[in-house]
């Protein structure tokens, strides 16, 4: 061949050209890659969703309802005075994920939880009055026997953490909004 890459007159110039071209190509590929990955992020319709309003009317003391937002389930439970007292009394007990009851509710009467066991994601029972509520009278996960107290804290079983408290606020005395803070 007339000449090969190894016997050029000015190798520095060649190296500069190759390196600068590869740099530009790299920047271009990275920029394009970022754009492509961005198309995989939650779309505008999904990202804005998940906020629901739930009416609290008709929920009697000691019972609760399950509210659904998309695929997410929330437990809204109206606690009795005894349940509140038990939860507050247990604040000092040894727990896997210690958290005072006052930090887990906005109004002591209402307990609002994301109904998903932190162990492997099953929906725990105990929201409605008749359901099995476990040894601590709160929630019971049927998948692997996690027992939660009347504040939704893990007391016994495999769950590594308490039932999570979602973002919510009281729009009025008998209406809450779940999915965002006020």
């Amino acid at each position, binding site marked *: *061949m*007339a000449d*090969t890459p190894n016997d050029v007159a000015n190798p520095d110039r*060649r190296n500069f*050209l190759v390196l600068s071209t590869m740099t530009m190509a790299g920047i271009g590929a990275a920029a394009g890659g970022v*754009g*492509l990955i961005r*198309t*995989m992020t939650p779309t*505008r319709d999904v990202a804005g969703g998940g906020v629901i309003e739930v009416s609290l009317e008709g929920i009697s003391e000691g019972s609760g309802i399950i509210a659904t937002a998309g695929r997410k389930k929330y437990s809204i439970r109206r606690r009795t005075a005894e349940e509140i007292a038990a939860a507050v009394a247990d604040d000092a007990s040894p727990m896997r994920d210690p958290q005072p009851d006052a930090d887990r509710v906005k109004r002591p009467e209402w307990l609002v939880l994301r109904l998903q066991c932190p162990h492997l994601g099953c929906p725990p029972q105990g929201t409605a009055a008749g359901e099995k509520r476990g040894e601590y009278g709160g929630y019971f996960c049927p998948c692997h026997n996690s027992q939660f107290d009347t504040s939704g804290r893990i007391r016994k079983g495999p769950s590594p953490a308490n039932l999570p408290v979602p973002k919510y606020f009281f729009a009025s005395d008998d209406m809450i909004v779940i999915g965002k803070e006020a």
Partner: protein
Amino acid sequence: MAGSRSPFTNPLLKGFDERLPILRAVHYSMTQHAYPKNLNYWWNFGSISGIMLLVMIVTGLFLAMHYKPSVQEDTYGINQAFRSVEHIMRDVKGGMFLRYIHSVGASFFFIAVIFHMFRSLYYGSYKAPRELLWILGCIILILMMAIAFLGYSLVWGVMSFAAAEVITQVFTAIPVLGDDILMLLRGGEDVDDALLNRFFALHFLLPFILAGVVILHILTLQTVGSNNPLGVDIKSKKDTVSFHPYYTFKDIFGLSVFFTIYLAVVAWAPERLAEAINNQPTDYNLPSHIVPEWYLLPFYAILKVFTWDLNIFGLVITGKQLGALAMGGSLGVLFLLPWLDTSPVRSARFRPLYRLAFWGFVLTCVILALVGAQTSGEAFFIPTPFGRIPLGFEAENGFVWGSTQQWGVLFMLYYFGFFIVLMPVLGLFERTRTLPASISEPVLPSSQGAGAVAAAVAVAKPMAKAD
């Protein structure tokens, strides 16, 4: 090609390459393969086409993450497939850009491949020993057309439905088996959910098959070597350079220019090459004027110009069958091209008559595209930015002289005549110009004296076994 020794010094690269020698295969093909040193910018379109295939596969993959092949309609009467395309345009971050890169990319992929093929025709790149290279290229073209049609249907707009309806109907022209083939394509009697789902599956699969054929195309190229603008074979090392860095950089420059134009269209005129009516979801009624995307227009023209039946001693071939045969034939004849062309001279630079015939063929493709876009029975016209130039008129008695259909038949005859008549005949009678003795001879002073060499090769068949 691949030497027995790894060319790498980096222990990681060397260790890998000694166990799986694909790195040295790439290295040797880039640096040791001899490419003619006189390739001009028309030779850029091969690598541009390859890059466009990559762009289409990558953007298509990300589009498929959001697309839903379903005809089910929401409460507004808009089908899921169309809705998901709208969703991509409106809700997916960067989705509008992503979709337009893909849809405009289809057009620019065809532009690159069309330039690539016309270059091949002009410089005789399909002739021995490159017959297989050309045939693989023809397979690539047909696969591209199929993939483009399938992808266009997925939008499930007004023209998507029309395309799916009309093109699947073409298969009913096949005697005996036609109706069964139609059933297999549609998965039912009508163009419906089943068709959309299988079109999506095929639109996802076929590009990878296309990529496989492209790899065979490139391997064949590396075996038989590149043609060049002079069309004479490589005689010595003086005639060649390595691919890298000479053609990598030349290709990168050409690619940059091409992408500047391509991305400008994506950014500022993404709907310029599309039919606006396809931005409406289909209501399963055929529009009065059905046109395919621009790159399929010449073949669509050949399909639709047959409006009469042919009766051969009682055997009737319907106009529909003639159209389907002609459209298939217009692609099939490309496969025979290496054997239809009888001239031993490759490059049109040395073939004055063939060069005229070639430009006539380019004009034919343009005219046929216009025929494909216009209504058959009406007077044909050339659209220009300043208005229409009519090439026909309606007579007193209502007969149209110079209708779209008549012009279509005329230029379809040139299309086939170019391959079946001009190619064999020109090779036998054309007086070609004197070929240079080698690629270097026109530019480098030969030790033997350039004039003497030129005189020595000025014989009737200069290409006959020059090597």
